């Protein structure tokens, strides 16, 4: 019997609420808290052409790290939602034939509930039945929408924690010629951010590090170009990294962010020297297309592949929305 079934048997009210963001990769997973950016290449932001695909040097061995999160309200104790959450992350290594193999994988299933706001009886049942409980502040219980946002950020934080652990474990084990590409911020972990062969690929651009003419150049970057490298301090660890924008697909006819990636690498002079070469490599990763993912224009296929791998191994009942929320007839 699952912990939520035990909870329902003990008197909790069954529920089925799957947040839209939980059905796939979280849209806000890359939310950044950028502050400032200092150009470390060029006097002002420039658009640099990157090597054509034929000239790109693709490392012989690359590992890709990505993670997923799933959560759903399973039951209510009065008006207190009790959430079932699942986060997972994996590192898949690309062999010389271009085939990906999982080398590291970790997942966590846990309940999210404000223990202090639950009735004593149901709280006891939950604590006895659920092996892993993530406590959450119960202040927002009275505001269901904001409470769920809080749940979402809690789950996302758990996922980020998992990814960071895997990134550190994976970067420690990288071979001399091997690179690690992770989906999201590189700067979450100091060890990873300082590694000479790790890259962070950021698809969402919640924070802008440039302004004025520089920002315009970045957002109107032609396909096959990168911006000048700039230094950013972001993420919870505030580890400084070097970053630049890279346009994979022409944005004209779409929107400013179409095909636009921000790349993070270690803050080192070597990064500036190799930014174009690394961009050429990532440009070559446009193929194969990461379809059918909706963000295929910014999602590298290997990262999409890791996500698909994790999705196939996630609990099926989490993230499965009911086709209809019409009242059940009981027949």
């Amino acid at each position, binding site marked *: 019997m699952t912990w939520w079934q035990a909870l329902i048997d003990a008197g909790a009210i069954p529920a089925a609420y799957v947040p839209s963001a939980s059905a796939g990769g979280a849209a806000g997973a890359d939310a950044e808290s950028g502050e400032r950016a200092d150009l470390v290449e060029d006097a002002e932001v420039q658009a640099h052409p990157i090597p054509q*695909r*034929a000239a790109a040097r*693709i490392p012989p061995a*690359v590992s890709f790290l990505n993670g997923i999160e799933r959560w759903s309200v399973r039951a209510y104790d009065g008006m207190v939602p009790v959430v079932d959450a699942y986060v997972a992350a994996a590192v898949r290594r*690309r062999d010389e*034939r*271009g*085939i*990906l193999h999982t080398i590291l994988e970790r997942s966590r299933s846990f309940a999210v509930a404000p223990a202090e706001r639950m009735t004593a009886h149901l709280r006891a049942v939950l604590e006895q039945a659920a092996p892993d409980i993530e406590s959450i502040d119960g202040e927002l219980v009275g505001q269901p929408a904001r409470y769920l946002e809080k749940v979402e950020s809690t789950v996302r934080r758990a996922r980020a924690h998992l990814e960071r652990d895997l990134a550190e474990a994976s970067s420690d084990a990288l071979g001399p010629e091997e690179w690690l590409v992770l989906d999201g911020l590189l700067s979450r972990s100091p060890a990873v951010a300082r590694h000479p062969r790790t890259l962070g690929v950021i698809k969402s651009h919640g924070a802008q590090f440039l302004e004025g003419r520089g920002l315009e150049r970045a957002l109107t970057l032609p396909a096959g170009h990168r911006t000048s490298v700039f230094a950013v301090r972001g993420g919870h660890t505030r580890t400084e990294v070097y970053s630049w924008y890279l346009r994979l697909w022409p944005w004209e006819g779409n929107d400013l962010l179409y095909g636009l990636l921000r790349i993070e690498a270690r803050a080192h002079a070597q990064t500036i020297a190799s930014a174009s070469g690394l961009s050429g490599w990532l440009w*070559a*990763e*446009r*193929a*194969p*297309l990461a*379809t*059918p993912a909706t963000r295929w224009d910014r999602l590298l*296929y*290997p990262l999409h*592949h890791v996500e*698909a791998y994790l999705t196939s191994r996630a609990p099926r009942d989490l993230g499965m929305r009911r086709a209809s929320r019409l009242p059940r007839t009981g027949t």
Partner: protein
Amino acid sequence: MSAPIGRVVATELKPATPHQFHFWTATETSIGIGAIVKVEGRATGDEGRVVYGVVSEGFAYSDLATPLHDVVGSEGDPTRAADAPTVRQQIRYWTAAVLRQTPEEPLQPVPLGQVYVADDADVAQALRMDTFLHSATPTAIPVGLYTSAGRAAPVYLDADFLLGPEAAHLNISGVSGLATKTSAVEFLLASIFAHFPAHKGRVAALCFNVKGPDLCFLDQPGDLSDEDRHRYERLGVPSTPFQQVRFYAPLKADGVNLNTLRTHPDLIGDVEPLTWGLQEVVDYAEVLLNRDDIDAKADAFIDFLRDRVLGRTFDDGFGGTHRVQTFADLDRLFRSIFDGLEITAGGRSDTWRTHHIATMRKVRNRLLNISTRCKGLVTDDGPSNDLPWKEFEDRTVYVVDIANVDPLGQDLVFARVVSKLREQLERRELGVDAVVVFVDELNKYAPGDGPETYVKKMLLDISERGRYLGLVLFGAEQFRSQVHRRVVGNAGTQLFGRMDMDELATPGYQVLTPATKSKLATLPIGELMVRHPHFTQPIFVRFPKPPVLRGRDGVERFPPAADVPFDDAVVRQLVRLDRRIRPNQVKDLIADRPQEDVRRALAAARRTRPDDVLAYFRRALGARVAPEAPVAREHHAVPPLNPISDEPY
């Protein structure tokens, strides 16, 4: 147990059922269409259930949503398509048809378990061979090796279902020119001879050679590769040619040279002439009559001849007494009757013993015509030389070479031989308990459409009733769809070599998946698809090259000898009977003697096989008499005495 090679998957659109399931494997896998796999129910909530299946369809696809995405990713340049650093996730997805489930009841959908390549024991289980392979009285006949997925497991047919009585007969289809059909039958006959169960008695085979030298060298060793020898060893069949083969061929029109391609001096000694006289032919007169001829009147007259005339002393009613034993005797009888009607009756009557003269003329023409059209097989005069009825030997192949005989004669040979086999098997007098009759070109002898010939009726009769008698038909044809459906339908075992795509498009092959059809259309030489009552799905097997000399190779190694002059041919036949005979003795003896007399004496010596052949031959030839002026022989088509009235009687 070996490592799993796949896993059963089922979706709402493609669920697993009790008769079919789907599974995936790694991209690099040894299995393919026709591979036998095993599914274990362990750890799926269906402990103990084991399902065997044969792969019937295969699919490969990637996560590519639309082909256009590949174009976009390659920027429209096909040469760049292979440059992508990551290989798209792809799947090898297979469909398998269930061969067997254990336990068999309750019959349930295939569990979503792990898939394994079947080993030898699994193949035996899957094909239900365990029941006849390991019973107290095994009845297993090897048909070939199952070689999919890197395995080489023997596949057996059940003799009770191949040679009767449960089911019987075998039909083999395939395109011409690959030697698969003939080779498969030759191998299978060798296998039957090696494995026919002792408790089922004695078995022989009778093969009609209907084209070229196909079956003329069954006693000569062919070239076998080491791989073939290994396969023979694996199947427990000796890789040697047939030890006992008897060849029969009619004579040519000259009555002394054999009408076969096995005339090389080293081999012709083993070929027995096949010659029949009136007695042998008249019982099958129906074969000789065409569709328009068959009527009650002709039938009645033939019956009359058969019951009252042949072999008896018979008074023709005009003062003549006849003993009709040969075509010549019959001709004399007819002439006597026609003369009698004209002279004795004064031409006032056109009936004789209720038979109208027109009917008699028609029957006479047809019967006497056969001795002309099939001269050499049918003798006008003189004794016959026949198959060794009642003395068929165990594990012996009897080859009747009718490749160069007139089609009418082929029909006659076929009808008579099969009828005699049937008759003697019914009486248990043949000398063996079961006979396999191999007939190639069923498209010609038992077509699905066309007239109801005597031969077709006979083939239908064997197909439907032969299994109770031990008379087993092994038929071969190019287009199965064009053979009479009751002939192919009654074949318990069906083999398919490489097939023509047009043939595979006919309704009879609808049960096969497109992949199986594709495999059939490209099947290599030496591979067959087998359907057998114990196998719930078709199985592909590989059989070794037959251990005998192929017809084509045979005529190269043993080129047929040219026809020899009459006297040399007589010498050769007599020397075969007695090696002490010197050619000059014979040539002196037959010089200036009518060939008919020589042929008659030769046939008598051949039939009697005396100790002193030359003395017997001399006696049979009789004293030399001065040649007489040839008597003007009347034309066979005797003109009617009176105009034929509408009333035949």
